[in-house]
């Protein structure tokens, strides 16, 4: 490239300040298309300038130079030289289409595939969903949308579908920032029908309460605010009824009645799961027949609320996973849950972690377990089963033949439970994973368990940390576990080989 040319160009650019933007626009496609010759690029830029901005002064100035270039345009030794100094008509068209996409989006389907991709590469991510939702299927566009909106994008959590991710998260954001009686429902109403075909999962991590009293509450003392908020049943949250109705593909629904990142604005009122909330939620869940996963955690769900919920979702046709962790469910609530899993559901996974279930609730659940034939996984971590409840649950395990995983960690169980467990371990052949950590089983219990485990070869995972069951037995049990793990792995390999050989 000859230096005078660049100079000239720079000069031109500097000179035509007001045209800079357009010039750049014109340059970028031309530059991308330009093969290798630098001189050519310069020519092109110049040409495009000329084509685009017919400024009389500059054209007069550049005329001799342009002539020169015109003369030099034919460069014999350049194999990739082309006449494309002026952007192609189709490029211009595409540009225009992109510019006016919002007003005339129907044209997209009529374009040739290559032009379509070009358009999709260029249209703005800020286009209203109304335009794009049903029209654009291209993953690339939705990826751009997601990336532009959120910093962290884990598409694997959304079935590797960017579009789904965008719509789900969009809806989540809207709901999470929805303040009842304050926010205009217009946005939600317009978004819902557009998202209906793409949303399968809804993970609501916070729900804002109505802001009536909130400003006052912030001024008061923390404890006072709590006491004040406690008696306010009118602080109902967002009603999911109309939303879930309009989502025919919803399979997973996670919700927390609480506020995230409240910081120093803490108010008990912010974490209130009212009876009306519970009733509305229960009703809409009962109405949503496609739901498979329901997660209602960290929401101060107490016995009464659980009973309401369970009474509504009893005999739900598709629900497979129920997560009620980190709530304050007591024995009555546990009894309700027990009824629910006692062949009134298709539940496979039940999580009651961090609740306040005691012996009575445990007995109810144990009774249900003896009759249940669907449950695979049960989590009762951080409850207060005690020996009595633990024994009940363990005895039920002797009769149950479907449960594969059970978590009984931190349940204040001691030696008598270990004795029963030893029997369970001998008899039961379906359980694979058993978590008993943080239960003071003691050395004797450990020994009993060890004896039981020596007869067993199906359990592959058993957590005995903080059980004080003695190093020796723990070690032996670990050995046995390793053996059964090996066996399982070998059998798996064998199956794989067989399958392969069959193939």
């Amino acid at each position, binding site marked *: 490239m000859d230096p005078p040319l660049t100079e000239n160009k720079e000069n031109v650019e500097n000179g035509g300040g007001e045209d800079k933007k357009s010039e750049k626009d014109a340059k970028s496609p031309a530059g991308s298309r330009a093969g290798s010759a630098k001189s050519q690029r310069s020519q092109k830029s110049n040409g495009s300038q000329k084509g685009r901005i017919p400024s009389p002064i500059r054209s007069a100035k550049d005329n001799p130079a342009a002539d020169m270039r015109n003369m030099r345009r034919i460069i014999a030794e350049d194999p990739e030289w082309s006449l494309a100094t002026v952007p192609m008509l189709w490029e211009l068209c595409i540009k225009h289409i992109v510019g006016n996409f919002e007003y005339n989006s129907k044209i997209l389907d009529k374009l040739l595939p290559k032009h379509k991709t070009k358009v999709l590469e260029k249209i703005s991510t800020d286009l209203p969903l109304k335009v794009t939702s049903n029209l654009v299927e291209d993953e690339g566009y939705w990826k751009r949308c997601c990336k532009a909106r959120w910093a962290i994008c884990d598409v694997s959590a959304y079935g590797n579908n960017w579009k789904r991710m965008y719509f789900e998260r969009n809806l989540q954001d809207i709901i999470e920032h929805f303040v009842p009686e304050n926010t205009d429902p217009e946005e939600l109403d317009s978004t819902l029908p557009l998202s209906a075909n793409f949303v399968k999962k809804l993970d609501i991590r916070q729900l804002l309460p109505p802001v009536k009293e909130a400003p006052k509450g912030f001024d008061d003392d923390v404890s006072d605010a709590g006491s004040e908020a406690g008696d306010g049943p009118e602080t109902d949250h967002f009603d999911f009824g109309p939303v879930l109705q309009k989502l025919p593909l919803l399979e997973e629904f996670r919700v927390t009645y609480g506020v995230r990142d409240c910081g120093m604005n803490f108010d008990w009122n912010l974490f209130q799961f009212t009876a009306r909330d519970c009733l509305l939620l229960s009703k809409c869940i009962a109405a949503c027949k496609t739901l498979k996963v329901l997660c209602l955690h960290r929401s101060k769900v107490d016995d009464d609320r659980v009973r309401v919920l369970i009474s509504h979702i009893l005999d739900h046709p598709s629900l497979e996973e129920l997560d009620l962790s980190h709530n304050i469910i007591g024995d009555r609530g546990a009894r309700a849950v027990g009824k629910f899993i006692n062949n009134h559901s298709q539940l496979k996974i039940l999580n009651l972690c961090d609740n306040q279930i005691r012996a009575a609730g445990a007995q109810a659940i144990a009774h249900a377990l003896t009759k249940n034939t669907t449950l695979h996984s049960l989590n009762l*971590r*951080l409850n*207060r089963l005690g020996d009595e409840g633990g024994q009940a649950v363990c005895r039920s395990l002797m009769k149950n033949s479907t449960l594969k995983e059970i978590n009984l*960690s*931190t*349940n*204040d169980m001691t030696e008598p439970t270990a004795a029963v467990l030893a029997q369970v371990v001998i008899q039961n052949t379906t359980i694979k994973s058993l978590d008993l*950590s*943080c239960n003071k089983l003691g050395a004797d219990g450990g020994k009993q368990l060890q004896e039981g485990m020596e007869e067993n070869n199906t359990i592959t995972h058993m*957590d005995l*940390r*903080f059980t004080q069951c003695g*190093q020796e037995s*723990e*070690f032996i049990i*670990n*050995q046995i576990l390793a053996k059964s793990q*090996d066996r399982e792995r070998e059998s798996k390999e064998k199956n794989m080989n067989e399958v392969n050989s069959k193939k």
Partner: protein
Amino acid sequence: MSSSGEEEEVGPSVDSNDPEERIAARRLRIQRRHELARRAAMGEDPSAKKAVKEEISKSRIQIEQSRQRLTKLLQDGTELVTNIRVAGDMREGARRIEEEEARRQRKDKLEAENKGGTERFEEISKKWESALQKEIPQDLHEMLKQQQQRCNAMIDEKNKLISEFQQELKGKDEQYVKDLKKQAEEIDLMIERMEEQIKNLTKAYREELNQIEKAFVTERTELLELQRKKWDHMMQQRRDKELEYMKAREKRVEDYEQQLQHLRVQDAEEYNSVKIKLETDVQLLEQQIQLMRATFQLNQEKLEYNFQVLKKRDEENTITKSQQKRKITRLQDVMNTLRIKLAKQEKQFRDENSQLTEDYKRITEQFMELQKKSRHFITTDNKKFTDIWIMNEAEAKELVEKVCEQDRTVTEHQLGLRWDQPDLEFMDNVGPILSEQTKRQQVSATQVVQEVMSQTGGVSDQPVADPVDRPYRPEPGEEEEGSEYHHGSMLKDPATKSEQGETVKSTITQKFSAHTIKKILELLCDESGFLVENKLVKLLAPLEQDEQSLMKLDAIFAALGVETEDDIYRLSNFFTKFRQATERAQSGQGSRKQSVEEVERQDGEPEKEGEEGTQTDEMAEDAEVAEELQKVMEDGEEVVTPRSVKSEVTELIHPNDVYKALRVFVEEQWQPTKEKSKQPQFKIANTEDRDDADDAAYWKKYCSILPEKTERMWDALLDGLEMYSDCLQSRAKLITETDGLRQQNAELRMLLHQYVNSKVNAELEIPPTRVLNLEFQQA
């Protein structure tokens, strides 16, 4: 917490020896299983497999080890990470229990306090009642003070409790803050551990991967080494073998060389001896060559001279040859022209011929048609002629009869004379008059035969009484007595025969003597039996001899095509003529013999024909015939001389020559028949000119049946009679006239009577009768 984690970390590390044991055990198990599976699947020998297995297992061991280590690492890592959570759970659990306890204590305390407070309050309230009873102000004051003190004590107590609880709350708050801090720390630790874990794991995985790769590489190198060793070994073997082969080859080469040397020496010796011998031979041969050369030269000169001579001759020959050639060409030209001419001529002639044939065909067709027509017309004319004739004749006869009758009546009745019958003999004739010749002309052959037979029967010397014997006799006569008898019989009518022979030539009607003909016929009948059908012979068997021969002759004639009398005469003529001809031909014995042979040959042929005709059913007859023939032949031989002597006399043909004669006859017969076929048609045409000379006379006879005199008499009679008739007629007329008048009279009378007597008259005023009467009166 960390100590416990270390403990748990140490736990698995204690059995660091164990994994190897486990690995060994597992390896064994795997091997066994694989072997079993393979044996079950393929039934291969396990020993070979084992070796392979061991070789393979190296990398596998490495993989297994790595896997083991990694799983351990993973387990430990997860344990390490989850330990924090578990510890937190543990603490939380403990805290909850503590909290519960504390709550319970607090509750107890509160209840106790409540109880004490209420008691004290009751006490105070009791005091208030007693205080009301007090009337002394000091007492009351004191009392009030006491009450105040008590209340204050109670309040203090309450306040103390409250402050206690507040203290506790503060503690809790601090605890909470601490817990939060601790949790943050733990979370940090957890994150740190996680990161560390990830780092470790990636590192470990990479290491293990490297190791596995290394193991694979080493295994590969080992394998390569092994293969190379094998390869080298094989190569070495090959080299050794090559060397061995080379040595063997060298040895062999040496052997062969020695042998070659030996052979060479031997051959040289041989060669020398042979050479000497050959040289001597050569010398001898050279001498001979010299000799030969000399002779050769001589010969050459001679030959050269000959050659010269021959050359000259050759030249002459060539000259003549060329001359001849020229001539040939010239002649060829002539020939060609002639040929062309010939071809042209031929073509012309052919065309002409075809044209002529076509013309001829057309003409013949026309002619045939014409003939047909003419025949038709002739027959019709004939018929017409006869019909007309007969009609006229009948008419004439009728007229004649009528005339005769009239004449008779006239003469007898009118004249009263005696009437003489005129001559009416010619009237017997019916149809056209025929000449006698034509009547006689066609006499069929059979008739002739019959005639002849019957004639001869009457005329012949033999008595008519035994006609059966007569034809019977000649046969044995022929066979037994030979030609003597035959000649004898023949001698009787030589004169007639010769005469007849001449007469036949002049006029065919002239006959042979019946006897001769009979003889000939008999001969024919006997000799040409083959012409008669077998069936006929069978049928004839019961008949009389004479009739038999008659029928036979009939059949024979039919076969020969003899139809008319004429034919018979010709045949007989032939027989006699043939005889003369043969006799003339038999100038010498040889020729005779030849002829005999010919005859024989000819005999054979007809016989064959006969056989074909009669079929081979009658072998016996054939045999007889053959015997007869032979006999005849022998006879013939004997007879020849006598016959030749009598050659001047016309004789009947010898039976042996019958065939020949017949043959010739038949051949000739066929030609005449053709000619004849034409002749009869013309003949028929000629039948028209029958002589009509008699016709006029015949018809005249009818005219002249009445004589002139009677005619004249008839005329006169006619005149007289006519006059008489006129007179009679006038009389008759008058009679009829009178009759008519009479009748009229009668009728008138009748009418008058009617009018007078009718009723109408009565009714009238004046009846007519009266009128009449008046009239009468007037009158």
